[in-house]
């Protein structure tokens, strides 16, 4: 299978290249980056030194491929998708440009009208745990946001199981610095970013729309930057009056994710890691889920942890590739993570 990566110089692009280089069924034909034209990939991604002779080619030189990954900034994918689809290949878009079905969201969250709203209906949300069938034949796949993925996988099964009226959820997310990419500006400078507990989006973030779209529950989202490079932890406070007991939660999650290779239930066993933690998931495609019932406050606490560059981006893109190509979903995604790390 011949693939191309557009926008290969960012952190997501780098993680994608690492996974694709280790994928037995894939040959990377091209990786484009206008900023690093001609530079070998290893100069921008030090972990890939000597692993490939690939060099960055200019975006304009992009040739058709079986699958084209778009690791471009938000707003960078929408303009070029129509021509890529016309060439007959599959497009896996890691930007936010095709995640939301409702075009009116785009001006609100991305400050611009969507150039091709007709594509939004066709785009399939790149979460195999919830859209596997449609992904098998999709032409355009929109890989979800990292915080959205953790919150949706944690919230969706309980949301579907419950029926309480007026249910609502508060999602309090914590994430590492790689989620803001290479050019995080002054706030990303180490002296200011290290040791942060920073509510950078206390009352609104674009990922909320994705979570609401997928779970049907109103979500009040707050995002915080904490000291880590990789990692997202979504703490979902589901307020539903009469929370299910923990045995019930185990059953709900087991039913929802029994066969899933990348979703693991982590709750309450002894030891240090009783609840999901992103730290030990760095480089993997796992999303670990945990939960705690809090009947005294009419609340169920649901926890979702993942690597924002892994299951939150590049890992999910490769998982979608495997589904689309009819390959075993774990192909090229077998890394179990490091501990201690």
């Amino acid at each position, binding site marked *: 299978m011949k693939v191309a990566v557009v926008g290969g110089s960012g952190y997501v692009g780098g993680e994608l290249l690492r996974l694709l280089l280790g994928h037995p069924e894939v040959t990377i034909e091209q990786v484009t980056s206008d900023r690093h034209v001609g530079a070998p990939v290893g100069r921008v991604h030090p972990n890939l030194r000597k692993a490939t002779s690939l060099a960055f080619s200019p975006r304009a030189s992009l040739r058709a491929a079986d699958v084209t990954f778009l690791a471009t900034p938000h707003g960078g994918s929408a303009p070029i998708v129509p021509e890529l689809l016309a060439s007959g290949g599959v497009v896996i878009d890691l930007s936010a440009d095709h995640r939301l079905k409702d075009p009116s969201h785009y001006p609100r969250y991305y400050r611009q009208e969507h150039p091709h709203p007709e594509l939004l209906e066709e785009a399939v949300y790149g979460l195999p745990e919830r859209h596997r069938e449609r992904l098998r034949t999709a032409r355009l796949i929109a890989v979800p946001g990292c915080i959205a993925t953790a919150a949706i996988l944690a919230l969706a099964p309980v949301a579907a199981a419950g029926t309480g009226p007026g249910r609502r959820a508060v999602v309090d997310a914590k994430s590492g610095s790689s989620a803001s990419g290479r050019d995080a500006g002054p706030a990303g400078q180490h002296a200011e970013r290290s040791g942060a507990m920073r509510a950078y989006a206390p009352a609104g973030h674009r990922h909320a729309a994705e979570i609401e779209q997928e779970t049907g529950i109103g979500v009040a989202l707050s995002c915080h930057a904490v000291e880590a490079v990789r990692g997202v932890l979504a703490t979902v406070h589901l307020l539903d009056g009469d929370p299910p007991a*923990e*045995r019930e939660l*185990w*059953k709900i999650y*087991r039913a929802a994710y029994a066969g899933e290779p990348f979703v693991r*239930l982590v709750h309450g066993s*002894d030891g240090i890691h009783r609840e999901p933690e992103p730290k030990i998931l760095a480089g993997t495609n796992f999303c670990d889920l945990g939960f705690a019932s809090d009947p005294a406050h009419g609340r169920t606490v649901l926890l979702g942890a993942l690597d924002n560059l892994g299951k939150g981006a590049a890992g999910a893109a490769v998982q979608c590739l495997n589904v689309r190509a009819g390959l075993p979903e774990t192909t090229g995604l077998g890394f179990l993570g490091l501990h201690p790390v």
Partner: protein
Amino acid sequence: MTECPVCAADVESKDKIAGEVFPCVDCGTELEVRALEPFAVEPAPKEAEDWGE
């Protein structure tokens, strides 16, 4: 076969002996075999760890 009292996962009775303590395969809780016929288990008593925070 019975269910784990904590997470309702299936718990195999095959080659278990009375009084044996083993972790539930799903939630990891230490379970103790209370009886074999019918097969019954209960969470093994453990000293609650104070998290100190």
